[in-house]
């Protein structure tokens, strides 16, 4: 919402300057977005008097003028045709910035003659496009500031423009008068009496108006009147200046008058060329399919249930949103029918949305226009038309009646204290409400018709607090719910997320936060990209689907970094992934990827390409941090984006997967534009069972007194026998005695043959009670060999 200071002063008697007004508006909840003060850029221009003007010795069109200025008589060279002795002009002295030519004036020589300034045209000061000559002023003293002269003699030229943001509740502030009322209630001036008009029609209105019964709840009130014999044409300069100042293009007097009331009183109006209206006007619900070329020169089709205004020929106006072009006014219009109507907010909002029309009228009607001002608005507009365009007014026609909902709420003057925490005297509270237009009847506050947002007692508190200024609110300590040390507040899941994150960062990974939506192709690679997880209105095709996994986002991040010359990456994310488009179809996932080498080439020769055992080690470290059970199985058979032979699922039984690690499928990497290998892991933290023992006490520590014995074994097995098979078999040889089994060597092929490998293990025996004899050790060793050979089909290596 934009308005000018002088427009505001039409309604508000105030001494306050534009800065104070702007500050107050923001404090009142009418947040100022911008103040444009044209006087500011004219600040350095002063008045001068041309004492003499002689022809330039070397140029026919230039004159050498002696100009009286605030700094004495100065010589100025001027090319304007009207430069001559005896006129009062506007001077830019050296050092002055001239906005219209984007130049700071300097002393210079023009064709060999010195010039100490410039005499300005309107265009050079960005006052208008006028550039046929320099400004000649009818009055003014030498040295006087030009902006001061304008303020006295032509104030609209330097009228400051204020733009404020209007929150959806403040429909009353969509008119300048509403803004003035707020400022007056705050004490920044006095609200001037509202202008009134009483129009005595001299003949019956030849155009009748009816509202269909089924439309009456959507269009409860319509008032109109014909004015015949008007002369349309450009509106007066003051009106044009105001509309231009707030960014509207002046069209013609009739149209400008409707726009004026839209902004002055939040009262949208419409004018029909009465000659182009056939028969009477009928307000009705559209059947759907009717078409109309509207005033924006676009053609619209009415949806069923939209409000339309029709004459005998058909639809003429999209009610409350935009008039039709065929019945619009033009410079030739002589008879005008003025419409002032009130429409239901929800109907206008729905129709506007369905027809995709944004207009000042829709914007206002869907926020709520004062229903009591329909008829007064018609009369005020009529008066202005008579004043500016002449003509003769008919009697008014009205259909329906104002839809005024009498509302009143109890003013509990203690509520401001209990709800807001401000102490304001009851009398002051009542006075505030009265100055905002509320009528107080005992404890009951009757809401003015223009404040449809006030719907309860809390709203009265809000008005009182707002007017008193929330800047006066003093902080008041909020006691703890119970005294003492605060109880812990994080859930198990929240703690797990933090632990996982910091463990991963400690392992050398960099955390990323990537968008929850990705492109369809990438989502599809990870079992997503279906319609259920699709956005209806994505911001771009790269962000069209909710991510089914964190991996595609990490791979895209890796690609971007590789393009910036960072091939060795360790990235991770903890975040939400989506299995569908219903609330709750989401889960927390953690994922990490490693690409390239473990680091740059280094002097110790320790850098090497990353492999899945890096991912596995990191994954197990994180799972350890998350208190995952120590005993898990590593199974294959993960999703299709993993390398089929090079990944493992960390499971509690075949169906409960806690995490996956491995190489990503080469086809996936190619599709994602990654040329190096990439290994990754994903964790589902919510799948990790919560330990049954929630107490703090640890299990007792059992320390064996006797020394442990270690024995090494090497087995030759088929190349596809898994180490876990051998470890598990060895462990089963004597569950009481065998404390640990470790794989310490693997040798594939060579003398063993292509499809064979040797795996070496260390078995650690922990005697309890008494030292082991050689015979006992020998017996366990035999059992180990037997178990492993049976389970693996291999043999002990000789």
């Amino acid at each position, binding site marked *: 919402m934009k308005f000018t200071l002088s427009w505001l002063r039409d309604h508000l008697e105030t001494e306050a300057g534009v800065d104070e007004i702007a500050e107050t508006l*923001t*404090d009142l*909840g009418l*947040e100022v977005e911008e103040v444009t003060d044209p006087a500011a850029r004219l600040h350095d221009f002063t008045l001068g008097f041309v004492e003499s003007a002689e022809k330039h010795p070397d140029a026919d069109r230039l004159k050498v003028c002696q100009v009286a200025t605030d700094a004495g008589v100065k010589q100025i060279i001027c090319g304007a045709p009207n430069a001559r002795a005896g006129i009062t002009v506007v001077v830019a002295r050296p050092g002055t910035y001239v906005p219209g030519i984007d130049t700071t004036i300097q002393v210079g020589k023009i064709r060999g003659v010195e010039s100490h300034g410039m005499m300005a045209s309107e265009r050079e000061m960005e006052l208008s496009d006028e550039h046929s000559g320099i400004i000649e002023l009818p009055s003014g003293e030498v040295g006087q500031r030009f902006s001061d002269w304008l303020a006295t003699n032509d104030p609209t030229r330097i009228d400051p423009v204020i733009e404020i943001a209007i*929150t*959806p*509740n*403040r429909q009353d502030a969509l008119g300048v008068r509403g803004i003035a009322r707020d400022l007056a209630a705050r004490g920044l001036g006095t609200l001037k009496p509202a202008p009134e008009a009483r129009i005595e029609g001299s003949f019956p209105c030849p155009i009748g108006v009816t509202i269909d019964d089924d439309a009456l709840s959507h269009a409860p009130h319509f008032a109109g009147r014909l004015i015949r014999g008007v002369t349309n044409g450009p509106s007066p300069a003051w009106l044009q200046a105001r509309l231009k100042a707030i960014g509207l293009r002046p069209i013609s007097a009739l149209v400008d008058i409707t726009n004026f009331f839209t902004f002055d009183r939040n009262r949208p109006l419409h004018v029909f060329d009465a000659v182009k209206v056939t028969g009477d006007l009928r307000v009705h619900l559209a059947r759907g399919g009717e078409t109309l070329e509207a005033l924006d020169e676009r053609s619209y089709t009415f949806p069923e249930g939209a409000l339309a205004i029709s004459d005998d020929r058909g639809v003429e106006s999209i009610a409350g949103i935009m008039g039709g072009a065929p019945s619009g006014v033009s410079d030739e219009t002589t008879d005008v029918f003025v419409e002032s109507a009130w429409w239901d907010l929800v109907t206008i*909002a729905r129709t506007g*949305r369905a027809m995709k029309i944004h207009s000042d009228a829709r914007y206002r009607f*869907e926020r709520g226009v004062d229903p009591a001002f329909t008829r007064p608005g018609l009369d005020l507009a009529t008066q202005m038309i008579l004043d500016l365009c002449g003509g003769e007014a008919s009697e008014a026609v009205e259909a329906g009646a104002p839809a005024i909902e009498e509302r009143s709420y109890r003013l509990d003057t203690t509520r401001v204290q209990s*709800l*807001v*925490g401000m102490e304001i005297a009851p009398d002051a509270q009542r006075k505030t409400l009265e100055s905002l237009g509320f009528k107080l009847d005992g404890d009951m506050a009757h809401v003015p018709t223009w404040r449809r*947002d006030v719907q*309860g007692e*809390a709203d009265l508190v*809000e008005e009182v*607090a707002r007017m008193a200024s*929330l800047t006066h*609110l003093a902080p*008041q300590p*909020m006691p*703890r*719910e119970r005294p003492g040390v*605060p109880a*812990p*507040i*994080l859930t198990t899941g*929240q703690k797990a997320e933090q632990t996982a994150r*910091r463990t*991963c*960062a400690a392992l*050398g990974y*960099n*955390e990323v*936060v*990537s968008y*929850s939506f990705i492109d369809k192709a990438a989502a599809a690679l990870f079992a997503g990209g279906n*319609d259920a997880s699709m*956005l*209806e209105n*994505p911001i771009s095709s790269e962000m069209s689907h909710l991510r089914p996994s964190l991996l595609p986002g990490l791979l895209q991040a890796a690609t971007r970094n590789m393009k*910036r010359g*960072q091939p060795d*990456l*360790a*990235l991770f994310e*903890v*975040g939400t992934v989506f299995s569908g*488009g*219903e*609330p709750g179809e989401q889960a927390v996932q953690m994922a990490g990827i490693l690409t390239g080498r*473990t*680091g740059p080439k280094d002097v110790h020769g*320790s*850098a090497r390409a*990353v492999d899945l055992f*890096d991912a596995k*080690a990191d994954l197990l470290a994180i799972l350890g941090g998350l208190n995952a059970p120590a005993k898990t199985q590593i199974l294959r058979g993960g999703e299709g984006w993993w390398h089929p032979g090079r990944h493992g699922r960390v499971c509690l039984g075949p169906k409960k997967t806690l995490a996956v690690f491995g190489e990503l499928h080469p086809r996936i990497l190619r599709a994602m534009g990654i040329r190096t290998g990439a290994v990754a892991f994903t964790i589902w933290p919510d799948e990790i069972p919560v330990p049954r023992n929630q107490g703090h006490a640890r299990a007792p520590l059992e320390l064996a007194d006797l020394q442990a014995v270690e024995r090494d074994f090497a087995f030759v097995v088929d190349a596809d026998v898994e180490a876990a098979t051998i470890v598990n078999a060895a462990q089963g040889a004597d569950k009481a005695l065998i404390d640990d089994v470790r794989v310490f060597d693997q040798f594939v092929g060579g003398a063993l043959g292509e499809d064979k490998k040797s795996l070496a293990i260390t078995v650690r025996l922990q005697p309890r009670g008494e030292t082991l004899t050689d015979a006992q050790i020998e017996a366990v060793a035999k059992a180990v060999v037997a178990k492993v050979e049976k389970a693996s089909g291999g043999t002990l290596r000789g």
Partner: protein
Amino acid sequence: MMDDLRTKYLSQIDTASTEAALEDLRLAAIGKKGEVSLAMRSLGKMTPEERQIEGPRLNALKDEITSAIAAKKAALEDAALEERLRHEWLDVTLPGRGGARGVAEGSVHPVSQVWEECTAIFADMGFRVAEGPQVESDWYNFDALNIPDHHPARGEMDTFYMHRAAGDDRPPHVLRTHTSPVQIRSMQEHGAPLRIICPGRVYRADFDQTHTPMFHQVEGLAIGRDISMANLKWVLEEFFTAFFGTKVRTRFRASHFPFTEPSAEVDIQCSFEGGTVKVGEGDGWLEVLGSGMVHPHVLRAGGIDPDEWQGFAFGMGIDRIAMLKYGIPDLRAFFDSDLRWLRHYGFSALQVPTLRAGV
């Protein structure tokens, strides 16, 4: 004779140049067949009087030789070590060996760090952390928050809608435009009194210099018998003071949000000198959040009786306060995963925010 032995061995020990020579001397002197040992064996043949004199003398001699050998041995070892150390030298200016994988240090994203900072501060004031779905029904995202279907605020929120299959006539779900739906879910689940903060991702269809289609919000809600807007101001000033580590004043300005009444926009005190924002000093104000007293309709939607209970709510951008605190210039870079950015603005794994150390 004994004096001869003493002189002979002590001088030989003193001049021995290797450990082997020293061992030879030990054997020659006090070994089984060493001269001193033999002399001690001959004690038996002596008269008791002679023995009483010679015995202690021989023992003393043996001890003296043993000590001399030990001392010489230590001296030789020392010399050997010194000799070795003369050759042992490494170029210590070479780079150190990397960790497990040798890559540079890992980092925690600023959003995560600030998430933990916020929860640490609010936990101390009794706020629990509530979370909820990011795809929401329009009832939780709008209706329950006093934003009915036709409300202009719906259009102004740049909402992302989920696709609806043909024939599914339910209103489309939305990507939550704020974390406020979590308030409703928490009220429904826990009732009053209630103190929660709801941090999380939110979505708006807006992408330019200062907006990203996804960002992070933290929302606060406190419901009690007599919790007022003045309490809200105190809670926020306590929060900002703890968060920025310097006393921060706030300014409340009247505003409007459908879900609160009265509503206020909150500015924090700051200076803008030299193009940088410094919080907690100067006489400028920077808008950082929206807040107010929870609207009676919203309490009702959460199953709480507004005649019995009242309270405040506020919401602010996590990314935004992270930018302010850590001087991060561009919001869009938060989600770009540029390694250089992550390393520069990220936090070490061990930098866990705590109140006792200051967040």
